[in-house]
């Protein structure tokens, strides 16, 4: 039979969850070389909302937790093939061309363009389910032989503590759902990049250069091997090729399951704080009353979270 039992209502548990949810932030950037092109992402998001449910089977479920994308930039680096004019036949014959005009190329090499698609401003959803667990944390900075009480008095504190986590939560994350206007966005970005490449040319020359380069989006389609559905292609790129869903899911698992406790309890636990001595004898200050927590278990019902401790 435990020496101490503490219960927290579902509302209290929600407040604990909301506090660590609001401190959550994630940012990452990477790029991959796909041969004919490179693709990179630069992302950042935070979490909002979430429906917290303590369940009768001793699990906790957080549903409809929103991933608010602060930044979701996809960059594509494309190597445009060198395009040339000329090469037309000066003297044709029934057996083929006898004499050809030399080819004159627009660029001295294959030009690179890089376009960035700002895909942010969307919301994704994630849910997580798991059992609560208390883990004992032994402060690794605490020197061997240092008494627990001295460790608590140290600045910064070197105290050990019990930490409350969601044990190895199962995370379900919705695929990143790109807006269906992404095709227009890509075309506009590529056009802008080509304009940037040719910025010093007068308008007529830019038009001709772009015509020589070919319909830009068709060119990019060929280089990227884009299917008709650009939206799906980009979603696959983010979700599958980059493995963003796995990266995000793992970060969420680590955050709630290992890195950021829902609550912490000092060990030994201060039952009574240090106080002035009310007696006329003895020291002026009375030391705090602390009890070591030998075992701390946690479980929940559908209405409350319960902590059971063995002390001494």
């Amino acid at each position, binding site marked *: 039979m435990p020496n101490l039992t503490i219960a927290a209502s579902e509302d209290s548990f929600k407040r604990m969850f909301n506090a660590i949810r609001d401190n959550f932030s994630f940012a990452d950037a990477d790029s991959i070389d796909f041969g004919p092109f490179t693709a990179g992402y630069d992302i950042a998001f935070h979490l909002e909302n979430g429906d917290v449910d303590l369940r009768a089977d001793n699990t906790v479920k957080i549903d409809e937790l929103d991933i608010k994308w602060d930044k979701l930039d996809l960059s594509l680096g494309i190597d445009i093939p060198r395009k040339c004019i000329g090469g037309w036949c*000066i003297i044709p014959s029934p057996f083929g061309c006898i004499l050809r005009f030399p080819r004159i190329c627009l660029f001295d090499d294959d030009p690179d363009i890089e376009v960035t698609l700002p895909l942010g401003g969307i919301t994704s959803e994630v849910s997580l389910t798991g059992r609560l667990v208390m883990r004992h944390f032994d402060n690794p900075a605490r020197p061997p032989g240092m008494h627990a009480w001295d460790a608590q008095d140290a600045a910064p504190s070197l105290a050990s503590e019990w930490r409350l986590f969601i044990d190895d939560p199962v995370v379900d994350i919705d695929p990143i759902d790109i807006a269906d206007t992404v095709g227009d966005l890509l075309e506009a970005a590529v056009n802008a990049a080509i304009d940037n490449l040719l910025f010093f040319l007068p308008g007529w020359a830019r038009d001709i250069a772009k015509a020589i380069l070919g319909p830009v989006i068709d060119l990019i389609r060929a280089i990227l091997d884009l299917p008709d559905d650009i939206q799906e292609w980009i979603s696959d790129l983010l979700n599958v090729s980059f493995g963003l869903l796995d990266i995000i899911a793992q970060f969420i698992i680590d955050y709630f399951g290992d890195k950021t406790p829902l609550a912490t309890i000092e060990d030994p636990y201060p039952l009574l704080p240090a106080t002035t001595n009310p007696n006329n004898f003895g020291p002026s200050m009375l030391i705090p009353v602390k009890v070591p927590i030998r075992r701390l278990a946690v479980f929940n019902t559908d209405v409350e979270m319960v902590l059971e401790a063995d002390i001494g």
Partner: protein
Amino acid sequence: MKARLNRQLFEETIFDSGALGLTTSVVHQFAEPGVYAASVRRIGVHVGVFEFEVRGDATEMQLDINLAAVDRGERENDCDCGPQRGLPVVSPKGYVLFHATSGGGWSVHVGEGKKKAFDSERLTAGDMFALTLLEPTKYRMENALGGAKGTIDVSFSPADAKRLSSLQPVIVTLKSGFAPEALKLVATQGLVFRVEAEARIVISRHGRRDPEPARGPFHVQRPRIAEPRAKKAAR
């Protein structure tokens, strides 16, 4: 990779068979077998010599000679095919095309021994002048060695942009005059002059260049003075 745009393509305004640039070429057929030495000149100044061989048993029907490469001391057409190793060859039934991949004002004088075989500043019957015009505007064409004159109208529209690769070159014959005298082309379309009289063909831009769209006035604002003016202070 930072690729450089070939700006010269868009900056040329005069196209001269006697002063070749990036988008112009002259073609001559050397019917007599032998080794030829081409003296390359830029704006009338000799810059280098390029040798080639016309050989009866050669199968090559086209030999391109890049005059800019000769100036740089490069040999783009070296091969093992001539009796003098490294000398490019061409059939007497084939054509030698002189062009330049950079710069302008190029001309070439070719002699077989002491006999002048070809002078690009003075084309003769059978020679060709081939070029492509990019800027959509009006041009004048004339034979500087004769009285022939004509006009070229180059256009470019969004519809043209879709058919650039399928444009066929326009052939013009130059005898006592240009036939036809008035041409309508699409930007980048090929243009070939078949020369049947002594000629130096000069095409120059005639039309005015459309002004670039206005970028708006440039505003300069004086910094605001926080202190009241003397007049106000006096009131």
